[in-house]
């Protein structure tokens, strides 16, 4: 097993959970990042201001933690650009088609006891595991 710090993982997770509760309790919205971004892109007028505010704040929150702790994550370099672009395309298309991502289905949907979110979460984790197995162990690339 890889070495890891369980405390920041658990604490960071709790902050994400709290963020989801604040958005639902304050605005009545699901804190699903793909839904928030996708909605901002699809609806050029109306119902988009809060989405851009949320995304800007998310970026600012990550930057704030980065300022306090600049060493816990080492940025990856040298990963194939084509692979990153293809991955992004699949994630963008797949999360919109499947109505959610790790936050919308995983954190919010499971908390709302949604059967759709449970099926989606199991599906994307299984597909991710299969993909990593194929890339790393079956084909031996990256």
């Amino acid at each position, binding site marked *: 097993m890889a070495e890891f710090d369980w405390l920041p993982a658990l604490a960071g997770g709790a902050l994400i959970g709290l963020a989801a*509760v604040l958005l639902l309790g304050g605005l009545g919205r699901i*804190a699903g990042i793909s839904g928030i971004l996708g909605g901002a892109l699809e609806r050029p007028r109306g119902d988009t201001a809060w989405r851009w505010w949320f995304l800007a704040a998310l970026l600012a929150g990550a930057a704030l933690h980065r300022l306090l702790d600049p060493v816990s994550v080492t940025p990856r370099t040298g990963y194939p650009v084509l692979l990153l672009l293809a991955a992004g395309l699949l994630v963008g298309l797949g999360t919109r088609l499947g109505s959610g991502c790790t936050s919308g289905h995983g954190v919010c949907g499971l908390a709302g006891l949604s059967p759709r979110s449970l099926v989606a979460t199991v599906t994307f984790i299984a597909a991710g*595991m299969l993909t990593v197995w194929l890339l790393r162990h079956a084909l031996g690339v990256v």
Partner: protein
Amino acid sequence: MGRLFVIGSGLLFGFGLDLARMTDPARVLGFLDVAGRWDPTLLFVMAGALAVSVPGFALLRRRGATWFAGTLRLPERRDLDGPLVGGAALFGVGWGLAGYCPGPGIAALSHGALDPAWFVVGMLLGMLAYAALGRRTG
């Protein structure tokens, strides 16, 4: 007032993602690599998130409205269909290719590196492609 909650929620979400190392694609790929040196970080992140969101959502559902008497816009659908499973599968493949999902991909832009930027460019194109296909989901 709602705007304050939006900004507060976004700040906590982004801070939490970076604190939890989810902006490190190596950790996420390590979680997905069950046949290699498995990295449990993501499991602890999900556990921490659900420990707060499950009771929080349950209390809000019982209340039946936001704290400002607004509508809770929770998805109503319970049915399973092809787009849900197919979309989740496509997303999972992309997730496994790079180690980024949407939130961490955007949050990792704060590191000032190109790696997540290429991913986010691809993701925006994928979402715009979906919008151009004219599909709408709830």
